[in-house]
């Protein structure tokens, strides 16, 4: 069946089974491979994208349910929060194997978009759904704080 999706501001029509998770639509059919597969059951966060601005696990969201939503993958990240997170990720050398990091960046960006100045507890709560087997957690936390400081400082000087 054909489904019309809005991904990174563009319309895409895909002809797949309605129960196909959005993850496999973007990866296998739209060639957007930045979104990763880690568990397939909403346990690891590797497949996180933004659906109407909310960090969402695409491995358990069907293509049928994705119609009419505004979907942003790592390839389409534009917001100042996203740029700040990615800049901090490079500056602090956060990724190791990197396989979880698209999901980490998506979750961190969604957090900062909602809460520009998160506490340690806020960060733990927002990020504990994203597993990193390389254990980059300390640098992820530091990266979120570095990105957050950019906004707090910008807000103060504005």
């Amino acid at each position, binding site marked *: 069946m054909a489904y019309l999706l809005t991904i990174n501001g563009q319309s895409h029509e895909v002809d*797949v*089974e309605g*129960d*196909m*998770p959005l993850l*496999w639509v973007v*990866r*296998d*059919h739209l*060639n957007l*491979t*930045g*979104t*990763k*597969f*880690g*568990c*397939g*059951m909403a*346990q*690891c966060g*590797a497949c996180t994208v933004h659906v109407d601005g909310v960090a969402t696990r695409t491995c358990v969201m069907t293509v049928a349910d994705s119609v009419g939503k505004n979907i942003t*993958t*790592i*390839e389409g*990240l534009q917001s100042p929060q996203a740029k700040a997170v*990615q800049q901090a*990720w*490079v500056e602090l*050398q*956060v*990724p*190791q*194997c*990197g*396989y*979880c*990091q*698209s999901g980490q*960046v998506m979750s961190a960006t969604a957090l900062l978009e909602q809460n520009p100045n998160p506490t340690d507890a806020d*960060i*733990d*709560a927002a*990020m*504990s*759904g*994203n*597993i*990193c*087997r*390389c*254990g*980059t*957690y*300390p*640098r*992820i*936390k530091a990266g979120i704080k570095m990105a957050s400081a950019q906004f707090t400082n910008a807000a103060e000087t504005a």
Partner: protein
Amino acid sequence: MNIRRFLKTDTAVPDSSRRSFLKVSAGASAGLMLGVSFSAPSALAQQASDAALEMNAFVSISPDNTVKVLIKHLEMGQGVYTGLATCVAEELDADWSQVVCEHAPADVTKYANLLMGQQGTGGSTAIANSFMQMRQAGAAAKAMLVAAAAAQWQVDASEITVSNGVVSHGNHSATFGELAVAAAQQPTPDRASLTLKTPGEFKLIGQDNTLRKDVGKHNGTAIYTQDVKLPGMLTAVVAHPPRFGSTVRSFDASAALARRGVQQVFEIDSGVAVVASDYWTAIKARELLQIEWDASDAETRSSGDILAQYRELVETPGAIAEAHGNPDSVLSASSDVTELMFEYPYLAHAQMEPMNCVAQVNGDSAVMWYGCQSPTSDKAAIAQLLGTSGDKVTIHTVFAGGGFGRRANPASDYVLESVQIARQVPNTPVKLVWSREDDMQAGYYRPAYVHKLSAALDAAGKPNAMKIRIAGQSIMAGTSMAAMMVRDGIDNTSVEGLTEFAYEVPERQVELHSPQVGVPVQWWRSVGHTHTAFSKEVFIDALARKAGADPVAYRLELLKNNPRETAVLKLAAEKAGWGTTELPEGWGRGVAVHTSFGSTVAEIVDVSVDGNNFKVERVVAAIDCGIAVNPSIVKAQVESAIAYGLSAALADEVTLTDGHVDQTNFHNYRVLRMNAMPVVETHIVPSTNAPSGVGEPGTPPIAPAVANALAAVTGRTFTRLPLRLA
């Protein structure tokens, strides 16, 4: 990096026959002679302007001023792109921003691991074996640039200086790119002419300002096996047997084949393969397979039964792995023997990227794309399977989403599975993808073990005799590496860390039982040290308590002839405030120190206990790994190794019920998440010794340090992993 570019650059340097090879050797640690072979550059003067000009097997320079370093090891997060490129750039005097990295092809004649004798990554050897070789490769390329400049400017080469990617003399100056074509035609420099820098001259080695070269991981552009896309590519999944050793008796694929997008279903050695247009189609079709399994050769025991057998085994004498004096007579004469039994579960690697591999078989040749950790042995295994020769097998290595040992499988299990499938779909690239459930349930695992340690203390409270018995599967037995790694029935990976006991105990003996069990096992980050360090460090702590001694002071006394462990332990203790800072009520502090892969790590852990729950609050680590090529990456690896080991200390456990693995995914194989990650502080011992391992040595001390911290609060001794207060 996309695959097309990958292929293009891979063929940009014509593989013309090498005119000559030159061996350059230099002394290194442990008395090893590290050799480097430089293939002489082919005549490439007519190359297109963007093509890389090969200076030697590791270094190419393009007229656009890019320095490309070929990396002979797999980048799986440990930072090997950056580490090896740093060594090249240091001696080349390149500007760090002009350096790019790419995985080297599978070619053991040029890219062998000098500590293994074959191309492969493991044992925390990447920097250790490459440190001199990469520096020599950089120095040789620099010499060719200098020679080209000297000829062009008609000046003496010795008066030419090179700095930050610029070659200069008086009023002359040129970039590497401008000299590349001429430099590639220079003769390969001879060994005597290469002068390497002294540590005092290093500009990049030891600095934190070298950003990682495995780029694209913050924006989704880095390419892993999972992301490989090739024209006409199909996706395969495999229905593996529900128990290890079961085989397919019969299967009915009619419902699966009726699904749109399903191409083929067929039996292979490891189960039934479904080949389809994409992953979801393949997985849904797999659910429709009706398979009858033959369990007559299957392992049908539960892990509880297996551990019970091991507990019996350690009560009986085993093969002697190491013997000093006669501990039995001392122990039997003692009226007060301390005895502890330790238990360790099977563990899954659970690397973030589930196992996968892309293969295309055309007649008797194969082309592979994957995060290849063992090019030489994988290549040989593929060639053997296809009945062809190694030169018919091409491997393109891409980033691996973690490994922790799993990707270096001595049987090349997942690699051969993918080739078996691709062979049935000739001339078509096929991507084999394991689901997380496959990854958790189809093996391989860190073996389960039981240890029994017994010791007697002398009048001063120091151990004067110790008996150690270990029971657990051999990782090496039955593999292609058995001949090399199993001696007189002793698989060193089962006992390492308890043999060559770091603490001074005059009479000691280590014995081993290696029972055959039908559960596939493999090394897991830090291999034998994952369990031996726990027994050793928890046991020593228990002996210190018995002797009424401070755990750090007790260790230092028993390490007085071991200056390296002493220095590392003292540094960690000092930085952690051991014995000098007060802890809140309900908190405890524990210590462990261990040497593995040539490096020593001490960790001091603070835990807080609340009823039957506890939290690891802080870890202070000290590491002596020789020269830290990139201190930021060393610290990242220590944090990573701690997180990985802590996950096993707190939660990881694979169990079997009647031969079925109970765990399926991250909801029941619980791994460390951010909310349980402690603050980690890492201190590096300054050193001018040759670099030693970094990826693994941080793992062994963490679990015992946590157990010892819990002991400090509760007064109990913890001898099972994962740790439980109740």
